[in-house]
């Protein structure tokens, strides 16, 4: 019984981590129709920024996360202005390839600057809380989960209640119609991209005490974000949260209850769910802003 409880705690904790990792990717895909192949590299950039903040200023990654968010928003804004905006009206494949190029530039550029040595960010919020005999709560992941829920709530309010949020949703649903009613779509895209890269960078800061920080940590994170987004629904915030939690729980369960190869099965699981969801429900399990096979415009 205590093991089952521990599995659920592990799964939710993992789900929290996946949630912060997937949000930015999901919204960029949902709103702009851009598959951000450099997503993992932006996570890595955020993680390095947080690591630097700790190394140079002694700032805990949880305190650094808001600053990393602002810094990465500026990075995102610049990338959007210089690159994404120029290819956004062209087929999906073009932006996909552009972002793939960005991912290679970022990872190799960071390798040149920081070398491929891995780093780990320290946090005061580490260790475990003993809930009962044989059941512990991982402290760092608990606070990552809290942060994830905070970001999810703030984003939901922003998208549902604010004028800019409504513009973003309108632009996601129908770009031309949004233009006709006077929405400055380019501005909406710029803000969306900057916001999402900011969130992605903050996610990097939050997970920097959990995963080793190194220039080539991005690709597996991008693939995970891709799987969760396509499965749960493009640009859907509740989808990102729900998909991440489902996957976290399935992975934790498989890894513990199947002996020897459970962890391998857990990795396969996300793609099995992805394939099934794409075939049976292309709009995602939770219903996204657009179906996964929507046209670029």
């Amino acid at each position, binding site marked *: 019984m205590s*093991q089952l409880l*521990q599995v659920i705690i*592990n799964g939710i*904790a*993992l789900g929290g*981590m996946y949630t912060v990792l997937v949000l930015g990717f999901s919204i960029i895909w949902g709103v702009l129709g851009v*598959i951000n*192949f450099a997503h993992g590299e932006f996570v890595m950039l955020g993680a390095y920024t947080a690591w630097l903040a700790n190394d140079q200023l002694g700032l805990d990654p949880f305190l650094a996360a808001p600053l990393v968010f602002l810094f990465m928003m500026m990075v995102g804004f610049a990338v959007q202005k210089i690159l994404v905006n120029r290819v956004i009206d062209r087929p*999906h*494949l073009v932006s*996909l390839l552009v972002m*793939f190029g960005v*991912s*290679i530039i970022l*990872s*190799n550029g960071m*390798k040149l600057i920081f*070398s*491929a*040595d*891995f*780093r*780990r960010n*320290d946090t005061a919020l*580490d*260790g*475990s809380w*003993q809930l009962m005999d*044989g059941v*512990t709560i*991982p*402290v*760092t992941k608990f606070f990552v989960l809290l942060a994830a829920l905070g970001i999810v709530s703030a984003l939901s309010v922003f998208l549902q209640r604010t004028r800019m949020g409504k513009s973003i949703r309108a632009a996601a649903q129908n770009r031309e119609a949004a233009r006709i009613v006077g929405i400055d779509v380019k501005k909406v895209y710029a803000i969306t991209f900057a916001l999402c890269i900011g969130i992605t960078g903050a996610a990097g800061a939050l997970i920097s005490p959990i*995963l*080793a920080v*190194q*220039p*080539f940590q991005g*690709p*597996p*994170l*991008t*693939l995970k974000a*891709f799987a969760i987004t396509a499965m749960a629904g493009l640009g859907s915030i509740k989808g990102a949260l729900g998909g991440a939690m489902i996957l976290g729980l399935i*992975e*934790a369960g*498989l*890894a513990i209850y199947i*002996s*020897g*190869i*459970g*962890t*391998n099965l*857990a*990795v396969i699981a996300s793609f099995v769910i992805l394939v099934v969801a*794409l075939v049976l429900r292309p709009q995602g399990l939770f219903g996204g802003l657009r179906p*996964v*096979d929507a*046209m670029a415009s």
Partner: protein
Amino acid sequence: MRRLQRILALVFALAMIGAACGTDAESVDNAIEPSEEDSGSSGDGAEDEATSEDPDDSDDSAMEETVGFAGTIKFGAALSETGKFSVEGKDSRQGYDTWAEWVNNEYGGIKVGDDRYEVEIIYYDDESDADTAANLIQRLIDEDEVNFLLGPYSSGLTTGASAISEANGVIMVEGNGTSDSMFERGFENLFLVGTVASDYTKSGIEAMAASGATTAVIAYEDTSFPTAVAQGAIAHLEANGIELLATEKYPKDIQDVSAIMTKFRDLEPDIFIGGGHYNDAVLFANSAKELGFKPDAMLITVGPSNPKLVSELGDDVAGILGPTQWEASMAYEGDYFGTAGDYAAYYESLWGEAPVYQAASATASGMALMLAIESAGSLDTDAVRTALRGLDAEIFYGPISFDERGVNIGKPMGTVQIQDGEIKVIAPDKAAVADLVFPIGE
């Protein structure tokens, strides 16, 4: 739907390319730790661009001293100057050059009978590619007519390169390709001065068994090298009467090991053995802490001998054990370079940096060949091969004596433990500078 299919196909293709590019991270993992990859990397075998350089290019004055030599013995090596093993390639080359520098300028040349011979090493860049390395070995044999070969870096490259040297009947001595499978081919001309992968955990497990450990669990990345290490560990556990409670495999690039560690925690083993890459070491240390999993000892196969791990993880890795081929602090000593520490000082005077074990292994490969040539008193391949088989020496790197496979069974793998923030060699006894602390925290 066709558009969707195209996108998914492209995403898959890019993921594959991305994964291939991502292997660069391993290259530097490998730079400081034992983790050879068996897979080759990109590279089209453009050997014409390979660089051949003068031997001993570190010191022009060496050429003037060649007057005193009866002749030159040509050694050849394919090493990675570019590609994913460029860091290890550089370390290996510095190791070989340290040996050549020492032989030519300090020792006075290799003794063959009454004559002294200068060492010349011809290098080519294998671009971290197995096919290129094999082609270059052929070139070294055919065009440069080298007398002997020194090994490339990694098991993957050595596997192909040694097949060529074997087919041509040229001896290759190496220190940085340790997969057991290479030595199960019945080759007569391949010799390894280092310890094979399956023995990485041997001295550590023996030390823990002697301290009273009775149960263990193992988690390992299911790629070639970690698997060989883990299978060796399973055999050593059994040989030492330690019961294996559970074994877990996990994929490369894993991001969470809490399920594995939860399962292990509930089994309450004395020893946890785990390994793959550096990131795994971070995950294991973090996860054990957040789950309250406190075995009496943790042996992590990749990471603990790297000072970076200690500085990054601090107290979280206190007491953790790990294997190492060689450390400058080891208590080995020989007639030539002196102690391991003396060797490290000489190396540092040449290159301005401390030697990593890849460099020490390279120097030791040259030393083994030199000792065999001197013992044979001849440059004849058969005579030197026989001398290598009969070699029984101790140098700064440890004892050297080859078995019938060509593996050095004289030198046991070292085991380090992180004690008070320092990496201390605790096994084997001959090399140890500190006692094993078991259980952790005692």
